[in-house]
């Protein structure tokens, strides 16, 4: 099967049980996406699949023929970090760093959702601010951080969004 990861096309021949997360980490040597719970509960494995954030641990790669995947490695580099990576550095938005690739990929997908005007569970009113602090917290609730670095992630994401 064919899969495009960070603009590089790959031909893969994998066991049907292989998740997207295991394909990235074990077969394509892209170890940025992390295996936390492996059950879709922690968000450490978040990547962008055809532009949308998903838990790669719950995606069977065999069902994603011709899909385009973006991982943390495809968002930015040490020399040219993505605005979200810059924001997390500037605001100290992490401690141990294990959840950070998932947090940043999730935030990238989330900012795109906000751009499209998608509501969240805390959105109210006709002219809401979709990037208020409660909005950012609600929209990022699928990404856990056991160090508890949440407070600094909020301004990090806000900076990346240019707010």
């Amino acid at each position, binding site marked *: 099967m064919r899969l495009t990861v960070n603009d590089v096309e790959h031909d893969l021949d994998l*066991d049907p049980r292989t998740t997207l997360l295991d394909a990235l980490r074990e077969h394509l040597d892209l170890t940025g996406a992390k295996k936390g719970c492996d059950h879709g509960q922690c968000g450490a494995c978040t990547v962008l699949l055809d532009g949308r954030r998903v838990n790669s641990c*719950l995606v069977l790669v065999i069902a994603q023929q011709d899909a385009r995947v973006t991982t943390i490695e495809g968002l930015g580099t040490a020399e040219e970090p993505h605005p979200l990576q810059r924001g997390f550095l500037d605001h100290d938005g992490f401690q141990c760093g294990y959840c950070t690739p998932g947090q940043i990929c999730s935030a990238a*997908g989330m900012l795109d959702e906000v751009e499209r005007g*998608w509501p969240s*569970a805390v959105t109210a009113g006709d002219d809401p601010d979709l990037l208020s602090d409660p909005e950012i917290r609600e929209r990022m609730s699928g990404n856990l951080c056991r160090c508890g670095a949440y407070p600094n992630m909020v301004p990090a994401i806000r900076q990346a969004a240019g707010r």
Partner: protein
Amino acid sequence: MKTFDYRTADRSSAGLAPEAMFLAGGTNLVDLMKLGVATPDVLVDVTKLPLDGITERPDGGVRIGATVRNSDLAADPRIRRGFPVLSQALLAGASGQLRNMATTGGNLLQRTRCRYFMDATKPCNKHAPGTGCPAREGDHRNLAILGGSEACVATHPSDMAVALAALGAVVRVDGAAGERTVPVTDLHRLPGDTPQRDTVLEHGEMITAVDLPALPFATRSAYRKARDRASYAFAVGSVAAALDVDDGVVREVRLAFGAVAPKPWRATVAEEVLRGRPATEESFRAAADAELEAARPLRDNAYKIDLIRNLTAAVLTRLAGEAR
């Protein structure tokens, strides 16, 4: 995980092999396969079928394709405007990542999160019929107070389904015997002594769409969910409601409870009590109590009776206030 063959579904997958299962978003099924609770020999992927549209019906209703993603449905302007309870229920569930994968049909067919069902090493009449139900004496804090049986007290975990029950949605099904429709409130079975069957669907029958009938007063509808943390957790109790008030009197009401039963619980007794009654908090509480008379709580989940009564009163009081 047990190995399996993978194929994509044809338009009609009549004749699904006995140990085959449909795969849509996979957010629940892949997890259950990892846990060894689901062990299909074949996965038939339905996501390549043209079932991902949301279309308006001539009668003013809306048809939702079975593979419409939860996030797309929640954001759809027709749903947000005409059926806000459904958008709110979807957004109250799971996380942004999961809603991007999860589908309408898959959300309805997700399995209970009862810890004994999710653990293949534990007895459970749902995953291993006849082995017993440890939940009745064990951890049942978030299990059923309505509709359970000696054999099973699982709750259906969906938020979306509770809104669909209140809205009187109709599930469209395709199978070997042709197409048929099932009211969403009849889709899930009560467990009785055969809790292994969650729904009335025959093996191989596929959900193709969910129809929302026209319901003009659903523009005034809401979903309220109580849970153990502020976000990204299953409900311990939830209420979906739509309310039509005329001159301070309830003309029509739709009410459904979540996380209290093996199915989304349409509160028909409460609805009947409310029609023609003053739209006051007192009426709303009395109506919830009438519905909850049937509740049979276990040692650790009687709190759900108070919770559902309070949620019902809060949601309907707010909707009544908006009507003024």
